[in-house]
């Protein structure tokens, strides 16, 4: 039998899907209102460009022929967010992204090849400022959904509790220590592995941040702390109950020389980033920002077991889907 995710018409007629899509709409609404209230200006996101976010683990980018040149479908709008700061100090977009993740991620319940994220950037802000905003919009979305859909969710067995604040801010090193203390394997110099992240998430009764990842685990744009070489000023927001990462963000590198060196450290050729490098030469402001995964947030709010259920037409990694 064909899986449900390969039959979107059937999937869309299910009450569970309809509720998830309504909740997604409400959550996006709440986040948009909160960001607008904080002075953010919404941009309509770019779709393709000569380069896109390279900081994606083992996932392939989509390439199109653009008037005879290779262009990339956005895997995230990070480079354009920095560009957008030329107009305003606080910007966001709710953007579709394409990341052709390895087929092994098809069954993690948390990966999609095509997904949306609300992506924001703030000029002259620290990563602590960005974590404040991430906490605020996550709480706003959770409270709005709990208020409007709490009873319906409860009928389906999902009890959406308010998230206790403030969200703890643990360092990557502290998390590695916790994992080792629990007898679990984790390379102190790499990303927290998915099963380990799920373990930490399941143990927590509220959302929490993991910050200060080691260099070598992220894209070139996450700023290396000048006072702590080898440590990045970046963070992930981890949802509780085993739902795991929903936000990834950082304070950005913004100086030309630093970014060129960091590009090489991530195996990138600066020539590929022509327009971006030209912009850096002219100077860009320091900034911080993040992206919050819309389907992952929906999965948490609704208690769904897989992120594809929060997409009307899911693209499960490794499979040709409608």
């Amino acid at each position, binding site marked *: 039998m064909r899986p449900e995710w390969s039959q979107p018409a059937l999937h869309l007629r299910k009450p569970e899907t309809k509720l998830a899509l309504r909740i997604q709409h409400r959550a996006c609404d709440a986040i948009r209102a909160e960001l607008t209230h904080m002075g953010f200006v919404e941009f309509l996101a770019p779709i393709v460009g000569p380069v896109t976010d390279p900081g994606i683990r083992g996932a392939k980018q989509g390439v199109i022929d653009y008037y005879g040149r290779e262009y990339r479908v956005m895997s995230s709008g990070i480079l354009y967010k920095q560009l957008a700061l030329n107009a305003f100090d606080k910007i966001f977009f709710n953007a579709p992204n394409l990341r052709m993740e390895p087929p092994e991620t098809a069954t993690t319940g948390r990966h999609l090849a095509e997904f949306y994220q609300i992506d924001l950037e703030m000029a002259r802000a620290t990563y602590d400022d960005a974590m404040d905003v991430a906490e605020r919009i996550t709480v706003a979305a959770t409270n709005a959904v709990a208020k409007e859909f709490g009873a319906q969710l409860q009928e389906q067995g999902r009890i959406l509790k308010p998230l206790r604040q403030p969200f703890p801010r643990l360092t990557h090193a502290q998390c590695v220590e916790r994992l080792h203390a629990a007898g679990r394997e984790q390379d102190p110099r*790499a990303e927290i592995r998915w099963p380990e992240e799920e373990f930490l998430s399941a143990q927590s009764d509220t959302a929490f941040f993991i910050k200060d990842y080691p260099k070598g685990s992220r894209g070139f744009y996450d700023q290396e702390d000048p006072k702590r070489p080898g440590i990045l000023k970046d963070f992930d927001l981890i949802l509780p109950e085993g739902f795991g990462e929903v936000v990834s963000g950082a304070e950005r590198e913004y100086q030309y020389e630093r970014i060129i060196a960091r590009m090489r450290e991530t195996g990138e*050729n600066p020539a590929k980033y022509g327009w971006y490098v030209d912009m850096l030469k002219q100077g860009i402001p320091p900034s911080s920002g993040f992206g919050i995964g819309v389907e992952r947030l929906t999965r948490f709010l609704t208690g769904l077991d897989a992120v594809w259920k929060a997409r009307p037409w899911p693209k499960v990694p490794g499979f040709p889907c409608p």
Partner: protein
Amino acid sequence: MPVDAAGLEPWEAESRRRAKDGLLALFPLRDVSEYGHRTFGQRTERAARSGLSWDQIALAPPLFTPKRFERMLELGREPYFSDVDLSTKVGGFASPVPFYLSAMGGTSAASHGGFALATTAAQRGIPLVLGENISTVRGYEKRTQADHPSFKERAKAYLKALPEKLGGLVIQQSVEDADSELWNHVYSDPDFEPLLATGRLGFELKCGQGAKPGLGGLTLVGAADAKRLKTKFLVQEHDIGHSHRMRHSAPGTYTEEILRNQVRLMRNNYPRARIWIKLPPTRDVDAAAATCWDAGADAVTVDGAEGGTGLAPSAFLDHMGLPLLECLFLLGRPDAKHCLHVSGGFHEGARIVKALCLGARAVGLGRAALAAHDADEDHGLGKFFDVLDLELRMLVSGLGKYRVPDLAAEDLFLPRGTVPTF
């Protein structure tokens, strides 16, 4: 001063050739048409600082052989050379022999033989490295040139013939391949899942090569390809003959920090792949190798100046780069947890055994394998492997040893005073 057939001294003959042939005179080619059908390597052997060359090192067998005694206890009879176990871990892969097939240059010869080389290596469970730029120049899935197999055709030929639990496929990525995201492409391609699932896929960061360290990849391309490749590579405008142009890859810029973080990023982004780093024969090869191992590389390959190539300027072939022996002396015997591979000029068992005694875990074969295939396209490489297999068993057992990791510097006779600390 020697003179050539025309009675000219070498400096004058060379000066006249440069004046006549123009940029073609950079290379050991008399005519562009020779390109692609031959491979090149250094033309005069360079001695290590100690004055040593490979041939001055003798294999030093003992009469008292405790390891042979151990083997006799295991077998319950006197051991023969056929009782040598040549199997070893090559860069994280199980290999029946302490050698693997290195990436071949981007020549027509290597490209045409690609299928056969991959298939023969796979049948025997020998690890194979697929070189940089194959995907970018010949196409990832579909062929960009009808008579040259694409990257995936070669990879699939290897995968199809590979026995269970042996071998491994290593994919190189150059600066330009990185622009095309080759590793991400492979890592997310379902056709490579069988290799990933069994831990038999590796990625090799090429920091340079023995024959032309610091120069980057170099091929000659016809006018049509020059136009197509111009957007991705440096293509010289100058016609060096028969409308051919030089196509260059960037060598890549490294500092200790850049190298360390590239290795860490590979580890982080591709947790299911083995991570190999290929180093050119530079004066800081010891520091570079230490950086790679410290950052988590599964294997470091040092390609000595003896390494072969599809094409390199004569000045590089004759003068640039340290001889492999000097690299081995600089490196010293690596810690047992660190895997060192060496390549450059290996074609027979004695030199392979010497390199293993000096601390290498395995040896990469390049031009020798290509020559063997060229000598007999159907069976040449297989026979070549058979000879090497038996020769290695004979040499190792002659040293009173029966396992590759037991080989050590004690098995070599180095003229007194030539090697200070090994």
